[in-house]
């Protein structure tokens, strides 16, 4: 149905042309899902924009053809192209929060498409809109149609976006990372919905993603992109059973998984070459483990290895996945269990809601509502939960960046809550934080050396400049960056390198506990593996304890000794990683685990689907917070919050059913 042949497009930069997508070809037939897989910056989104002819102002399509059922799209007049967009090809975007216009009702936004492409107006249009909303699983569509986007949650907005995309009855749906911004349980809902709609309507779908798990769940055929080129195209079965290209193999090997616990993850050395300096030979050559002299001279041609499997690589070695010669690394749980270094009891953080002229408090947002944790030296506790459950607030409250409302935080025997001035500053030495976004966590106007030295000067550790310089150099070495990095500015580094700098900054004051707030969620898989390896290595060398705040179960399985699962400001299940992940007792933990898309063929047996989304912490449900979404809820769940029950010495759960 859609036939893309030798598409080349680039971005004009001055007089030069930076080629972002270099001659890619693929076809998508009716009812088929073709997944474009690749890391950030490899040209996936540019390809989609090129097909829609929606490239930004600097973008140019230089060569190739895009045919939709025989119609050449690239030579179509803009007026005709507008008839194609929305009616024959529709697109859904990554960020549901920004893809809907906040000042128009949902009905008006769907109606716009109906009016344009189907000529429907008035009552028939309204009927059609109701039908569409029902199709995408929005309850009570009569009322929802006249509401504004801010009244919808993130997952609901994405459903509306899908409804808008479907309104023009397109033949092809382009989904650009449709679930990346959503929580796992909601992601599972949206993926199910997309798969079901595609089956019903026989649409073609171009799915753009970086997540192998999503690919395994959705795609029929997969194209792997690297540095603007397709390097491997295979059917789903072939792809997951016999990945051929070294890049694809490395992507699989870089995934953190429970089977790789205690081992260093395979990383891909180096970085994607920049657009301005693309090698004429094989583009992966510099990072490839199987590189041969020919790779550096000739760009490989397509070659078939099976009926539905082609790739561009000179190497035709064994299909065996990259050998497990990776060294075993320090296992956190080899450390002896000691008295907890950090002991948190019944921590509460409530934010008042103020209204009216006099700013009176009319309610409380119960962001954190009675959390108890304990971390021993040298161990890793993973705090898991969906967005909005309060896990980041816990991290900040521990550091006293947010003032706790109640509870106690004891660090090495001294109480932090209520501590002031000098003593608090001294206590902060023992505890530091690594933030999520490496682009926002480094001041762009300071040199890397100054950034790392800041903590030392503020806490008065190294006062003279020479000693500070030496300390900075040692830290840079520790996180695997060259010495000369100290004199450069953050913008000269890639995301992974910036995260290393952030880790070096936190380590500069020699803390015993590092709070890592989603340190890898903004990074690509291969870079994530590097950072996880680094964190493990540091734990082994320095004996740092980690509080790992994350929503990514693969990382938890790989790294954590203990796991605490949070829902709506409270911890619902807590225990050793093995216990919680192998035999989860709380229905929420079970649902979370089953919703995680697994990058394997055999996954997805009896997934538990949670209805709805996390309620607002300003107004939590009565009784057990989870009961409105719980498939097993009984009467007592609606009436009172469950007590903590012990499954084993280390494993506790808050559920009426787990007794």
């Amino acid at each position, binding site marked *: 149905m859609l036939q893309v042949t030798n598409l080349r497009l680039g971005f004009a930069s001055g007089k030069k042309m930076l080629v972002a997508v270099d001659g890619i070809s693929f076809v998508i037939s009716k009812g088929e899902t073709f997944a474009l897989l690749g890391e950030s910056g490899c040209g996936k989104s540019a390809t989609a924009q090129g097909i829609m002819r929606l490239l930004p102002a600097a973008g140019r399509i230089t060569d190739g053809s895009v045919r939709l059922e025989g119609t050449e799209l690239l030579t179509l007049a803009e007026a005709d192209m507008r008839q194609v967009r929305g009616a024959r090809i529709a697109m859904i975007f990554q960020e549901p929060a920004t893809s809907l216009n906040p000042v128009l009702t949902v009905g008006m936004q769907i109606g716009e498409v109906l009016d344009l492409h189907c000529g429907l107006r008035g009552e028939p249009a309204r009927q059609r809109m109701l039908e569409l909303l029902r199709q995408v699983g929005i309850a009570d569509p009569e009322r929802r149609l006249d509401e504004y986007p801010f009244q919808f949650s993130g997952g609901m907005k994405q459903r509306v976006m899908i409804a808008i995309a479907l309104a023009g009855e397109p033949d092809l749906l382009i989904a650009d990372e449709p679930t990346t911004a959503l929580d796992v349980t909601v992601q599972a809902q949206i993926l199910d919905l997309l798969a079901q709609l595609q089956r019903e309507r026989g649409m073609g779908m171009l799915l753009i993603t970086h997540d192998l798990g999503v690919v395994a769940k959705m795609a029929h055929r997969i194209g792997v992109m690297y540095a603007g080129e397709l390097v491997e195209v295979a059917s789903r079965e072939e792809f997951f059973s016999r990945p051929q290209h070294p890049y694809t193999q490395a992507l699989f090997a870089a995934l953190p998984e429970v089977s790789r616990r205690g081992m260093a993850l395979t990383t891909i050395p180096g970085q994607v070459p920049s657009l301005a300096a693309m090698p004429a030979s094989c583009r992966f050559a510099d990072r490839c483990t199987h590189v041969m002299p020919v790779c550096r001279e000739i760009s490989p041609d397509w070659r078939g290895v099976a009926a539905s499997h082609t790739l561009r690589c000179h190497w035709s070695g064994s299909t065996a996945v990259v050998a497990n010669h990776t060294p075993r690394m320090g296992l956190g749980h080899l450390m002896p269990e000691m008295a907890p270094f950090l002991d948190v009891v019944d921590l509460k953080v409530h934010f008042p809601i103020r209204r009216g002229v006099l700013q009176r408090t009319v309610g409380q947002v119960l962001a954190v509502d009675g959390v108890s944790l304990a971390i021993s030296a040298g161990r890793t506790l993973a705090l898991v939960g969906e967005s909005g459950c309060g896990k980041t607030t816990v991290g900040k409250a521990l550091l006293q960046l947010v003032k706790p409302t109640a509870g106690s935080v004891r660090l090495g025997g001294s109480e932090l809550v209520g501590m002031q001035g000098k003593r608090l500053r001294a206590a902060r030495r023992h505890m530091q934080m690594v933030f999520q976004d490496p682009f926002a966590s480094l001041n762009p106007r300071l040199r890397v050396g100054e950034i790392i030295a800041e903590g030392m000067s503020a806490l008065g550790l190294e006062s003279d400049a020479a000693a500070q310089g030496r300390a900075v150099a040692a830290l840079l070495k520790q996180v695997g960056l060259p010495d000369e990095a100290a004199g450069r500015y953050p913008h000269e580094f890639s995301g992974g390198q910036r995260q290393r700098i952030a880790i070096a900054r936190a380590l500069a*004051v020699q803390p015993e506990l590092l709070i890592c707030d989603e340190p890898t969620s903004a990074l690509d898989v291969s870079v994530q593996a590097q950072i996880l390896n680094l964190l493990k290595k540091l734990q082994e060398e320095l004996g740092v304890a980690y509080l790992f705040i994350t929503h990514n179960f693969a990382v938890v399985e790989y790294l954590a000794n203990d796991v605490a699962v949070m829902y709506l400001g409270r911890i619902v299940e807590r225990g050793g990683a093995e216990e919680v992940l192998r035999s989860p007792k709380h229905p929420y933990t079970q649902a979370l685990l089953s919703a995680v898309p697994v990058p394997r063929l055999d996954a997805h047996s009896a997934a538990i689907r949670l209805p709805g989304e996390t309620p607002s912490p300003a107004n939590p449900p009565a009784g057990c917070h989870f009961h409105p979404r719980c498939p097993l809820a009984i009467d007592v769940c609606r009436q009172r919050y469950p007590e903590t029950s012990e499954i084993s010495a280390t494993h506790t759960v808050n559920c009426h059913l787990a007794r």
Partner: protein
Amino acid sequence: MMGFQVVLLWSDMLIWLLVVAGIGVGVLVAKTPPLLAAWRRVGADRVGMAAATVLLAFIAIGLLDSLHYRVQLDGKPGQKASYAVEVLSVLDALAAPLRLRNEKTYSAPFATRLYAKETIDLPGGETLRDYPRLKHGGSHLGEREDAVAADAGLTAFRAGVLALLAWAALAAGAAALVQRGPAAVDASGWQKIWRRETAFAWDAVLLTVGLMLLVVVPLFWLAGQYHVFGTDKVGQDVLYQVLKSVRTGLIIGLVTTLVMLPMAVLLGIVAGYFRGWMDDVIQYIYTVLNSIPGVLLIAAAVLMMQVVIDTHPQWFSTAAERADLRLLALCFILGITSWTGLCRLLRGETLKLRELEYIQAAQAFGVSSWRIIVRHILPNLMHIVIIALVMDFSGLVLAEAVLSYVGIGVDPTMISFGTMINSARMELGREPVVWWSLAAAFTAMFILVLAANLFADAVRDAFDPRAA
């Protein structure tokens, strides 16, 4: 050689301080790579550099006009030297012909006769009502009054040729400079300039300089023989008034920003960073200040200042000092009433910055609030400050014109665009209309403000983090 006494007016001091500060900032920028990179982007912007060239010409005029002195009067030797009451500037000395060759009243540009009929006594005792001959304008022509066009054209042509020669010399100098730089491509400096292969927008600068020379050289050449922009009611040359107005405009534009900047930056950051009651207080202050009609506030302050000046004549030894104080007072008043916009902008940006993770990381290290403000917040606000500075400049020059027109601007004896327009107001009402005073003031101010705005655009493009 006559003796003279240097007079240092307060505004002179401030303007030279600004020049020194500008050089200091320049040195600082050269040492800070990100700032240097941003200014390099400004340097590569053709329109911006053309505007900067024009602005520099205006600034040169203003600086020449900011070196004041008093001439020593002829006295008997042995007596204590006494000095003239009139304070002159270097510009006055350079433009002496323009300043001294006054006519009786209005005359049109390039006119040889006055614009009003007068009764002329003829030798025979008769009288005649006619346009009298000008004392200076076109006096070298004698009786050949109809040869003005030919004479002026020829002079302009000669001056133009000279201007072209001067420009060629300048361009050759620039080419030699480019040639000496790092030579990546093997081409002469001249070719590099016109193929736009230089990092700095030399072609735009050279073109602007060429155009300016082509206009300015003939203009001043002719100004020696004619009143090229005509004369005003008291016969003063309008070109001279335009030149004198430049300094007033520059001072209003620059000194005012100097007054408002510390207040806006400090209060804006404090409100945004500390929030709570400090934020409330600062917000109330600027909301209240904003809701008082600006002109009313300025009028009240200026009139009070005028009363103070009038009741203390002993403070001032010359009229220039008195006018100068009023000018400075106006700058302060404008500064105090115009900081609110920038303050609000900076407060909003600080609110955004303080939630960023690197600020939180610094807080987690226990870095003190003031250190966070100085190290982390202020440098990240600098682009807004620079953009606001350059954009406010043109607004303030226009504000001066409006205020002087209403009569609450600079001292009436001080020449400014506003006072020129104010005095031209009545002339527009007479028949036949006297248009040249207003047109000259309008054109000069238009060029100055347009150049400032274009330059501001270039600066904003270069410093805006979203555009980079």
